[in-house]
């Protein structure tokens, strides 16, 4: 029997080799899945990974990469800070929705006033909405020791209900001929999050994502708060001995991840999505969990992982339209990536061993 044996110290090789190996395994097993569905696996894989970058429509799809990667990176970095501290915010999707609703509400409240301060005010309101939604599990955890995984996850469904209400009643477009959904921000210049560089798909959300990546990296490596986050995740008792206040740490990490998810929602609703609708959220908050781990909970890694995941989104949509692949198959494909990542990750701390020596002694 093959046994797993703990390494004396974590393998540096596998730390960096894990993500590419996981991607390759996902391609192989995903390919088998696609073949079983009667599709040509090579064509599907090429459509997902190659065409968006170098295919016929790459001039347009390349820009879509940053559009999709931006919110994923922004949310994943916030989540990663919490994950590093052992605080498991699984409800970024809900915080994303609430950020979008709060930010949009501020903009819609002053429609059609034109003022330079409207968009910044909406950004602040968006971050505040996500922060507020994350404070619910944070305070329940610190006061009543509830499990933040369950509470934050369940609050996603509450947020979705509020979203449905918002798009059919309190944020509904009065000139929308009775259709659900808010006014479209693309027709409201003061509140619009337009492209800064259209060919790159760069809007304020993308800027925020890249800047946050750099800031989070500095926080984790140079700042005492980052040290405390890492310490609390690795050795909770040592963290208390160092002087970390566990309550404050939970509030801080949940707050940052909630605010960043809220920001992502705000940039999305005022930009690519354009309006609050019942199905405004597309799962960025959940996919960002995969992105966070794929990036090894390291902010710079997350930026790369965000682009990789965006590729599967953009390429997946292409595969859906061009090859008739069901969108659920793409979601399975993305889930596989996390599965293999965590599976291969075992090799960072463990190695396989054939207990040959022990077997001979036992046979005597």
């Amino acid at each position, binding site marked *: 029997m093959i046994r797993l044996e703990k390494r004396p110290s974590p393998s540096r090789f596998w730390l960096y080799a894990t993500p590419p190996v996981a991607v390759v395994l996902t391609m192989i097993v995903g390919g088998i899945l696609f073949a079983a569905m009667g599709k040509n696996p090579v064509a599907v894989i090429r459509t997902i990974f190659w065409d968006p970058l170098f295919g016929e429509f790459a001039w347009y799809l390349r820009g879509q990469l940053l559009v999709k990667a931006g919110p994923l990176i922004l949310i994943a970095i916030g989540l990663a800070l919490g994950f590093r501290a052992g605080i498991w915010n699984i409800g970024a999707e809900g915080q994303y929705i609430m950020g979008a609703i709060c930010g949009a509400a501020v903009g819609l409240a002053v429609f059609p006033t034109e003022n330079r301060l409207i968009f910044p005010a909406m950004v602040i309101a968006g971050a505040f909405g996500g922060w507020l939604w994350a404070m619910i599990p944070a305070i329940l955890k610190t006061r009543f020791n509830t499990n933040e995984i369950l509470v934050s996850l369940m609050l996603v469904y509450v947020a979705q209900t509020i979203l449905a209400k918002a798009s059919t009643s309190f944020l509904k477009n009065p000139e929308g001929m009775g259709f659900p959904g808010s006014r479209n921000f693309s027709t409201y210049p003061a509140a619009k999050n337009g492209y800064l560089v259209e060919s790159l798909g760069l809007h304020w959300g993308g800027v925020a994502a890249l800047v946050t990546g750099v800031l989070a990296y500095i926080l984790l490596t140079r700042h005492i708060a980052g040290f405390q986050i890492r310490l609390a995740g690795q050795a909770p008792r040592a963290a208390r001995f160092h*002087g970390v206040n566990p309550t404050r740490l939970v509030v801080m990490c949940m707050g940052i991840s909630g605010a960043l998810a809220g920001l992502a929602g705000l940039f999305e609703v005022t930009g690519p999505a354009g309006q609050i609708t019942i199905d405004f959220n597309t799962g960025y908050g959940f996919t960002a969990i995969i992105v966070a781990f794929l990036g090894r909970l390291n902010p710079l890694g997350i930026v790369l992982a965000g682009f990789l995941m965006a590729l599967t989104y953009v390429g997946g949509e292409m595969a859906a339209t061009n090859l008739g692949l069901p969108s659920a198959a793409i979601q399975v494909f993305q889930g596989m990536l996390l599965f293999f990542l965590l599976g291969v990750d075992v090799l960072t701390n463990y190695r396989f061993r054939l207990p040959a020596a022990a077997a001979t002694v*036992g046979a005597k």
Partner: protein
Amino acid sequence: MTGTGTERGSTAARPELLKISGVTKAYPGVIANSDVGFTVGEGEVHALLGENGAGKSTLVKMIYGLVRPDSGSMTFRGQPYTPAKPAEARRLGVAMVFQHFSLFEALNVAENVALGMESPPPMRELASRIRAVSEEYGLPLDPDRMVGDLSAGERQRVEIIRCLLQDPKLLIMDEPTSVLTPQEVEILFKTLRQLSSEGTAILYISHKLEEIRALCDEATILRRGKVVGTCTPRERTAREMAEMMVGATLTPPERHPGEKGPVALGVSDLSVASPIPFGTSLKNVSFTVAKGEVLGIAGVAGNGQDELLLALSGELKVEPDRLRIASHAAGDLGPVERRKAGLVSAPEDRYGHAAAPDMSLIENAFLTGAVRRGLVNRGFIDWGKTRAFAEEVIAQYDVRTPGPEVAARALSGGNLQKFLMGRELNQAPGVIVINQPTWGVDAAAAAAIRQAILDRAAAGAAVVVISQDLDELLEVSDVFAVLNEGRLTKPVPVQGLTMDQIGLMMGGAHGMEVAHHAD
């Protein structure tokens, strides 16, 4: 008084029970046992003597079927002996009492005993057998009591009785006295001698030399996984055996008592509920420590030592007036503010409490050194300065490591402890609180650590040393007190204290007085 063992026949006359020859066991990166061999006769009390890490535990785990040797052979009662698992070892008549008990605190004594048996009899029958065995061997134990309510000594009795119910031919005891008061040790020895006279052999693992001299017929001495000698303990001095065990001559630490200054740490009427499940709450603890003074706090593990450290380090906050650092109320301060006020502390558990095992020594230096060594500048960590601090500690305290960027868990217990002690002592502290300064540390490193503590006291620091090692406390302390069930005895000067007095301060033997005086 422990030296008066019953007279027994010479070891040569004993029939051979267990013979081990050429046993080798390697783990990745370390050879735990190399070509080890010795023989235990029937009814013999045989000591396995060695420092921490000498390979004693691995060796007995192989005898008990928990670990398989890479090579070598064992015979038991004349038959080849290769137990694949502990159940097989028990069936053949080998029983073991572990250093760390495997008991369920929420179950009663009889239930715990039943859990360790292959086919336990009905509960009532088992309870009466427990009573019978415990009376026969002078180890009173109520089968209906909850294990969570028992003292460490009583818990050990549960383990011993569990073994005795199997009627073993060989009983292995791993560091059995580390959790006992001197009186309890005396009672345990009486039981072991009785067992030995009835023909049960005992393999006794310890590094406490006086105990081995009092109890054991033969000793096998291990160093770095190899047998370096055998002796008859009664014919050797403790010092001779220590030098065989360490492989070097030992020098006791030097004392240069400084002038006793004003009170640096004052604790008055401190009561704290334990944050640990089945922990011990502190009850009305009061003491003062002056500058240049060392207060030694003894006590059997689990009597409130961990809680006292948490309350002193600031991890547990108390009312402001209950704790004063240099006469300023400090009870409500957290660890960072207490460090600022001059109090540093070193918890017992190195891997996970005093240090983050997966972090580098540099990061671990920052862990407590941040405040007093000024390693933070406007929230940002000065890694250059932190590395210099780590290197300073490594050099000054002779920490054996490839470099400061190595993870803490890669260091041996003694090396890491030297690093962690140096980290606290090199912060120019006014008050130092240490729980178990040399637990699991080899003799040479332990001597260096004790010397460093004494040097700091001589330089004017007030020191509190919490330890279960009485010899250590008597060596370093000026004043001595005992923590017993969360209560601290009145501190008394160490000069002129006898072991008997200390034993009485430690509460004698828990629940054992009747049995003790009956003999």
